[in-house]
């Protein structure tokens, strides 16, 4: 089963000066195919949790297992390769490689995986069409709006068919129409490609679309609500 489990995860920043317990014992299990929102006040540890799950940051205590792999046992470079194969990231900003076109950005991770050129091309075009950017494929990020850039980022995260997509406030810089649009795309891909989505957000309209809502307060899970659609 492609699940994410965290057990007693603690992450302390600034252990020497003024320690900040960004995560303070998080136990969580996210199953395959879920569409989960992580919510909570600013500073509650949402970004930190996503980074720890994605192996961008290492927990000080506790275990993180992603798709059966013990994240803590891997070296930094192994983690990079692990992400390349299994995890797609969407950040709040600075997602795209500025010197590459939308199409090349989407192809990029597949290229790192040494997929054949034809497959890369077809998949990139298919995904860009899916996110409604068929007419922007050869544009560089600087020629795209914020919403278009985030859609390219989602397309890129999806391109290598990862098991999980981790998105940290993907809609934070978007207007409500673009947000709704992006959420539609994410939900559809979640259904059709069976990709597990975990995203953090402050946005009530985004929260409304989630099927599971995990609320963090002060680095702890304070509520965990599963809803039908």
């Amino acid at each position, binding site marked *: 089963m492609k699940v994410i489990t965290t057990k007693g995860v603690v992450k302390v920043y600034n252990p020497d000066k003024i320690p900040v317990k960004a995560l303070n014992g998080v136990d969580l299990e996210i199953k395959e195919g879920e569409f989960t929102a992580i919510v909570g006040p600013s500073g509650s540890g949402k970004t930190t949790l996503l980074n720890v799950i994605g192996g961008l940051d290492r927990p000080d205590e506790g275990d993180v297992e992603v798709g059966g792999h013990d994240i803590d046992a891997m070296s930094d470079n192994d983690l990079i390769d692990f992400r390349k194969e299994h995890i797609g990231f969407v*950040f709040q900003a600075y997602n795209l490689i500025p*010197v590459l076109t939308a199409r090349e950005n989407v192809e*990029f991770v597949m290229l790192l995986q040494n997929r054949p050129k034809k497959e890369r091309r077809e998949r990139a075009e298919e995904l860009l069409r899916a996110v409604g950017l068929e007419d922007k494929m050869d544009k560089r990020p600087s020629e795209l709006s914020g919403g278009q850039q985030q859609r390219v980022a989602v397309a890129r995260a999806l391109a290598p068919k990862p098991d999980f997509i981790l998105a940290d406030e993907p809609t934070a810089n978007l207007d409500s129409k673009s947000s709704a649009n992006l959420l539609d795309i994410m939900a559809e891909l979640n259904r059709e490609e069976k990709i597990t989505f975990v995203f953090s957000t402050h946005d009530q309209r985004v929260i409304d679309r989630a099927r599971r809502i995990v609320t963090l307060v002060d680095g702890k899970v304070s509520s965990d609500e599963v809803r039908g659609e």
Partner: protein
Amino acid sequence: MILIMAWRNIWRSTTRSLVVIGAIAVGIWAALSLTGFATGMVKSYVNNAVKNIVSHIQVHQPEFLDENEVKFNIPDVAEVEQAIRSEEGVKSVSLRSIANGMISSSKGARGVVIKGVVPEDEARVSALEENTVEGEFLSEEGRNPILISEELGRKLNVGLRSKVVLNFQDRGGSITAAAFRVVGIFDTGNKPFDQSHVFVRRSDLNGLLASPADSALAGGALAHEAAIMVNDIRNVDTIAFSLGAELPNLKVQTYREISPDLELYEGQIKNISLIYLTVIMLALVFGIINTMLMAVLERIKELGMLMAIGMNKLRVFFMIVLESVMLGLVAMPVGLLLGYITIEYVGKNGIDMSMYAKGLESFGMSSIIYFELDPGVYGQVAIGVFLTAVLASIYPALKAIRLRPVEALRTL
């Protein structure tokens, strides 16, 4: 695609990249031109020394070299001359008889080496005829003609058609003196040589050198030195070697043995180009490091993102090295071409150093230097630039892969 990325990355900061590319190109140009200049100088020095003074090969009686006395002449001159002329690769030979003596005028006297030459033979071996700047070269006409240098003329206060007296010992050991008339003034550009050498006809000198006891030597049979020019200077060692085997009782020396400084200078050409290259590349290393470091530091976030989405450290490292190498590769053809044009142009037309020529000429060089470059140096420079670019990128590339993605992403 990493190639494309690297290529586009270097053009993100066009001005900065162009500045480094320009610096590298100028560096290549300078390395080539300086090496071409140095090679040209050395070659000019060696050529001048060869054609004015030492010639390619010289043959002597071994004792003559030690004692410098007129009695140590080359035995069986006619056969020796024949042997040398029939040696393959030999272009010309001049047999000289030599006496150490004194030249005097009403104004003074100086010690000189008196060389007796056969005018037409000498003209084919050395540049003495071309170097005769006033009057005429020695010929068969007239009584006791002599060539002296401008320097010596000034010192003795004599000019064309003046009379000078030569004093020296003949083979019997008695001092003889004879009057000579200045028919020509020469100037090789090498002051020490010019001040201490005069040229007369060998037949005149031999007539004076032969003591009554050995009058058989009076005509063409007396010579102390055979000066030889070969067709191709690169064969000088093989020709000297085979002459040595043929003339076992004589000492055969190449210009390098006669004038060890020439060998030293020739040997330095390679080192010179390496030294210039190293110095210039060292300067470039810092320029490239600086540029690449800036390129890495202003892209921290992006590099973090690349590692977050799966670009591993080896690839990030490789991308940075590639960017640096590309800067070098763009600059390389420009610099090589500029250098080539400079070398070819100055190689043909020469560069007039007469502003500094006084200094140069007293060192035995021409005032016009023709650049010259061993074609291998272009390859050497190309490899040098490539290695420099790779070396200079290592530190910035290490800096890039030491970034941790989260921290890099958090950097604003």
